[in-house]
């Protein structure tokens, strides 16, 4: 489908590697700029009674701060900049995708997987930095007899390594499925002629649902990052 196609805007080749500036990169730049503008412009006034833009900036700040405090505790404060950036970027990318004729960055598995892999590697490094080699005990729940460990440890390891996959597939599949469904219903509107009003009404509702999914998936992405961070810091 056309909306998922990646087109290069400024072709750049680095040896054999294609590092062209594509429409995907363009929308990532737009998203990053929007988030920066929101936070910088929103807080530039810094008035006691916040205006609209400042309200949005403060609300998103508090939302992520609360999320981190609830799921990680005080130890998580240090990672607030990372989680906030991640949440805002994914959220803005998802919502940008809802504007007509735009490109949805998060509907490509490679991008969500890159995010998830970064989180996974980062969290694992934090865990090893914090607990040293003792983090390996995370894979062996205590109170399990030795002979069962042979079975439990591989299961836990596979479960741990499935994290970046489930994290990335969930975001990518939600975004892609939503946009595909919208496209399919849009096709019905034309095909049905006068009766196309019915799918058109349905599409309006579906667009609302998609906006909700866009926000929800950004939230889920951020909260799972918090949960993984918590596991790394506190080894439940």
């Amino acid at each position, binding site marked *: 489908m056309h909306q998922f196609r990646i087109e290069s805007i400024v072709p750049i080749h680095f040896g054999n590697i294609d590092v062209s500036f594509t429409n995907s990169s363009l929308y990532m730049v737009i998203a990053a700029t929007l988030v920066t503008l929101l936070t910088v412009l929103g807080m530039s006034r810094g008035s006691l009674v916040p205006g609209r833009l400042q309200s949005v900036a403060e609300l998103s700040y508090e939302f992520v701060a609360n999320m981190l*405090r609830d799921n990680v505790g005080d130890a998580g404060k240090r990672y607030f900049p990372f989680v906030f950036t991640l949440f805002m970027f994914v959220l803005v990318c998802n919502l940008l995708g809802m504007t007509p004729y735009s490109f949805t960055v998060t509907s490509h598995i490679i991008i969500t997987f890159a995010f998830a892999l970064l989180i996974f590697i980062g969290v694992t490094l934090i865990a090893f930095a914090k607990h040293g080699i003792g983090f390996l005990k995370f894979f062996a729940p205590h109170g399990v007899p030795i002979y069962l460990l042979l079975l439990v440890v591989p299961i836990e390891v596979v479960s741990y390594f499935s994290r970046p996959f489930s994290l990335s597939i969930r975001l990518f599949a939600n975004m892609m499925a939503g946009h595909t469904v919208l496209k399919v219903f849009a096709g019905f509107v034309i095909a049905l002629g006068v009766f196309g009003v019915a799918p058109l009404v349905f599409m309006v509702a579906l667009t609302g649902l998609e906006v909700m999914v866009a926000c929800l998936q950004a939230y*889920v992405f951020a909260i799972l990052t918090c949960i993984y961070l918590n596991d790394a810091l506190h080894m439940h």
Partner: protein
Amino acid sequence: LFARGARDLAGSDSGSNPGDSGAEKGRNSDLADFEARLRRTQQAHRAPEPKAGQASAMGVAFRLTTELVVGVFLGAAIGLAIDRWLGTRPWFLLVFFFIGMAAGVLNVYRAAQEISAQAAQGDDGDNKG
């Protein structure tokens, strides 16, 4: 927490009542009042608040499905990779397929626990608020 709040309130009351004996005293009581309010605000900041967003049923279903599917596929992929490396097809594939299934079920179980814990917390907050 409530006891702490009540004590703070009582403290600030007794501090501001005998405040008519001079400016020095008044400033002290203001300070005490400020301390109490500051402590209360900090307390509120530290207390866990109910979750703002609650996943929709479809979101929950989708999350659980991906957890299960990813577990099975990752198990099979690891098995295949080891087999290709050691040339022992299909034994590691078989073993890791089942381990992957178990890991998928474990993931689903943990995700369901998290979701139900979140839901319980949300209900709690609703009842109190």
